[in-house]
Structures are given as structure tokens and as C-alpha cells.
């Protein structure tokens, strides 16, 4: 019996040791989080998620709610009010001289006043805003479809992304962890989302003009992605073929700080 047991219990012990070791490694070893090779592997999940979601619902619509389901108090998050002088000047004039510039890979670069944007055919949608932190709020948004603006600007054939340049310098939020330096907020989406029917530049919320807290004069709504993609205080759109040259090149303020560019999850 002992002859039979010996080699087996040794193997059993090795197995037990390996398991215990793996457990210790996990609990004690933050080094895994900063290991470059591992980080490349785990980041491959993002592309898999994007491909999968495009496969199962490239044209899917975010659920639209009834006015009775609106959040009574839609939390203001991120920048509450840009302090930058340019923005403050526009705010003082009630955005009368504010203009949205559409530039980059377009045959017809243009600037639009807030009045012109307000007079465009608009879409109104009541949708759920899902924050990366885990909370959700339901709001009603009104504004022209982004696709309409892009068609008017007549994109060149090598266009791949739309970059949203915002007015606010942002310093991050402690609750989101990691190193969070201050820089100009920006975001970007690809053309599938840019031409999605629910992707709008909202100038109104819950039936009134967009408040400063929620991104006046206009903000992006890209309803199939998380809250940090919904850029507020949009000052200009760049149509581009590559995201290099904006921030650290990852396509957005939070993306430059480790968050997924494809925020459908």
C-alpha cells in the first residue's frame, strides 16, 4: 500500500502546491497588472468584444423609454462647469457667438452656429445613460443626427473616425483610479456608430436647453456605449483616418488613461 501511495501523494502535493501558489500570486501580485506581455493579452478582449457586438447587432437600437420613466434627478458627472476663459465667454453670451467647426477629411468644411443646429431636423430619444462606474440614469435628448452633419460636410473616402474636441480641461476622478493628469477632454467614434440613427448632437435635455452641467451648448449621444463616450461641451468635430495626434493617441481622455476605446461594455 505504501508503495502505491507514495508517488501519488507526491504528485497530489505538487498539484496542491501549484494551486496554493497561484492563489498567493493573485492576491499579492499587482505586478500582473503592469506586466506588458500580459497586458497585451488581456487587452485583446476589447477587440473580441467589439467584433462580437458588431456581429450580433451592428444596427441594433438602444432601448427608448417613456417620459414616465425619466430619472427624477439626472446626476451631473465629470466636469460640472468648464472654467476655461473661452468657454466662460461663450456661456456669458448664452452661446450666441459659439460655433461648431467640422473639419478634417471633409470636402466641405463648415461652421455651424447653435441656432443653425437647433433649426436642423432633430431626433428626440429617451435613453439610459450607463456610467462605467456602474450607475444608470434615464434622460431625454434632442438634436440632429450626427450622420446628417457628416453628410453635409461630405466626408472624403479615407475617413474612418470622428473626433470630438471639447472645451473642458479635465483632471479625472479619484473613484476611477489610476494616474489621472489634467488635459483637454476629447472622444472619438468610428463611422458605424457615427451614422447610427441614435447618434445625435444633443442641444436639449428633458425638453429644455442643455444645462452647463450636462454639456451645454451641445454634447454627443452615442447610445450603445458608456457614459464617458458621451462628450460634453463639444467645440468641434474632426473627421480623421487615424487617432494619432490627439492626446496620447488612444482616442479619448479616458482611453488615454487605460479605459477601452470601444465602450460597448
Amino acid at each position, binding site marked *: 500500500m505504501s508503495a502505491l*501511495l507514495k508517488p501519488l501523494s507526491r504528485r*497530489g502535493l505538487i498539484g496542491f502546491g501549484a494551486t496554493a501558489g497561484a492563489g498567493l500570486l*493573485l492576491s499579492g501580485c499587482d505586478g500582473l*497588472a503592469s506586466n506588458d506581455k500580459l497586458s497585451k493579452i488581456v487587452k485583446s478582449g476589447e477587440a473580441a468584444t467589439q467584433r462580437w457586438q458588431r456581429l450580433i447587432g451592428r444596427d441594433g437600437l438602444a432601448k427608448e423609454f417613456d417620459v414616465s420613466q425619466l430619472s*427624477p434627478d439626472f446626476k451631473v458627472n465629470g466636469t460640472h462647469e468648464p472654467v476655461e476663459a473661452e468657454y466662460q465667454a461663450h456661456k456669458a453670451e448664452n452661446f450666441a457667438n459659439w460655433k461648431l467647426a467640422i473639419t478634417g477629411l471633409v470636402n466641405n468644411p463648415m461652421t455651424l452656429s447653435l441656432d443653425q443646429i437647433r433649426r436642423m431636423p432633430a431626433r428626440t430619444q429617451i435613453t*439610459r445613460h450607463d456610467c462605467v462606474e456602474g*450607475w444608470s440614469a434615464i434622460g431625454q435628448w434632442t438634436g440632429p443626427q450626427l450622420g446628417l452633419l457628416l453628410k453635409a460636410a461630405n466626408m472624403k473616402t479615407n475617413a474612418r473616425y470622428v473626433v470630438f474636441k471639447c472645451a473642458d480641461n479635465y483632471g479625472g476622478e479619484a473613484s476611477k483610479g489610476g494616474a489621472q493628469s489634467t488635459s483637454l477632454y476629447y472622444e472619438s467614434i468610428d463611422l458605424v456608430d457615427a451614422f447610427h440613427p441614435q447618434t445625435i448632437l444633443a442641444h436639449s435635455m428633458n425638453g429644455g436647453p442643455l444645462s452647463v452641467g450636462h454639456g451645454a451648448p451641445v454634447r454627443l449621444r452615442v447610445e450603445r456605449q458608456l457614459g464617458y463616450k458621451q462628450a460634453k461641451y463639444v467645440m468641434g468635430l474632426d473627421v480623421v483616418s487615424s487617432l494619432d495626434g490627439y492626446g496620447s493617441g488612444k482616442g479619448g481622455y479616458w482611453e488615454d488613461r487605460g479605459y477601452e476605446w470601444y465602450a460597448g*461594455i
Partner: protein
Amino acid sequence: MATMDATAETAPPPAKPYLFHRHALAVRVTHWVNALAIFLLIMTGLNIFNAHPMLYWGEYGANPDVARQWLQIGADTNAAGQDFGFLRIGSLTVETTGVLGLSTGSNGAPSYIGYPSWATFPSYRDLATARTFHFFFAWVLIINGWLYLAFSLASGHLKKDLLPKLKELSIGNIVHDIVQHARLKFPKGEEAKRYHILQKLAYGGVVLVLIPGVILTGLTMSPGTNAAWPWLVELFGGRPSARSLHFVFANLIILFIIVHLLMVVLAGPINEIRSMITGKFRVDPETAA
């Protein structure tokens, strides 16, 4: 070995311990991949939870919606001016200083955070990294889970070994198994070769209810998935409800793991774990028989 073989010829076969092939290779491999994925998913999940340590029921839920909030982990200051951590479920609040809400951070300083640093990965607040790891291991869990299910269906493992037979579900049998467990009497000899009713219910429950449940509720926190499959999130009553249920499923899985590991240790960890690594399980024929 030669001498043992010689004695074996004269004795009846079950009189000495022998090795029994207990777990198929596919079950062993998927079990360990699953265990690794689940450990990382739990630790990154708790880090993600710490970004907003509150849970709600309904279609929306955020800080102002206190009426919809049913769980909160936080910190506050008492009348004596001392900070304390708490867990609140409904109207019940328990002080949890040292573990939840207020604990010692990985740097030794007091940390105002939901789950403590030893329970999370990374051990410090880092939503971006936690999310990246969480979603990668969610893919691992799902693909591995499909492989396990496909094998278990095709080989009959699910029906033969995991699903309880009708007669096993009798109250008498279940009570008997509970009593045996309470007395720490685990099946021996030939009886140890199959799963008994509590084991079947626990494994079957994890494989067919808890893991599918945690995956489906996880998927419906994704706005992209919700646009593609709107019916799924409505099944759970909205994203905040799905998030609450995801938390409940995850906690039931944690409970399962604690009991599972305890049982493995009590039933003889070396033989048990070896059987999940090499497949071989030693059967000691009952001498009293």
C-alpha cells in the same frame, strides 16, 4: 511491485486500495481554467464594484435615487468623531470597519474603499485595469464553459454524474446526506466513486444556474449587448437590477467556493485534488464490510 502483484492474486480484488479513473481529461482541464478565471473575475469584480459601491433595483439607479438603493458599502463619522465602515442592506446597517468601507490599504494607511485591498485585483483602486482583466477572463469563462457543457452533454457526464436521479431527490435521501455531512462522514469505498445528492445539487447548481446566471446578468450591463438583445436585460428588469443580480450570483459563487474548498479539505485533499489533476482517485475498500 512484484510482491504486491503476487499477494493480489491470492486476495479478492477489492481488498486493497486501487486507482479509479474518476475525472475525464476534458473535465479536469476545464475545471482548472474555470477556477483561474473565476478567481480573477471575483477579485477584479470587487475592484469594479468599489467604483460605485451601491446597488439598485429598476430601470435606472444612481446616487440621487436613494429609494431604489438596496445595498451600500460606505464610511461615515460617528458622534465621537470617529470614522467607521458600514454595510447597509435595506434598513439594516452593520458596522464593518476593518473589512468593508474602511480598511487598511496595501500601503498600510487607512483606506476609504468598499472591498479591502486583499480582496481585489489590482489591490488598489484601478477601474480601468480591473475592467480589462474582468472582460478578458469573462471571455475565458464563456468559451471554457461552452467546451465543458459540450463535452458533458456529448459524453453523458452531465446526465450520468451530475443530474440527480429521481429517487435520489427523495427527502429521506437528502436528509440522510445532510446528516452524513454534518457528522463529517464522507462516502467510503465503492460509494465514494460517484457524486452524492448534495454534491450533485451543488455542482449542478453552479454549472447550470450560477455560472449561466452570472454570465447573462454580466452581459446585460453592456449597453452594446442591450442594443443587440434588448429582451435579455428586460428579463432582469433593467440594467440596475441586472447589476444587483450579477452581484447576488457572484456572492453565491463565492459561497459555493468556500463550501467546495472546505469539503475538498475534509474529504481528503490529496486524493481529491489529485483526482482533478491526474484523473485518478484512490478507492480504499471498507475494511469493516
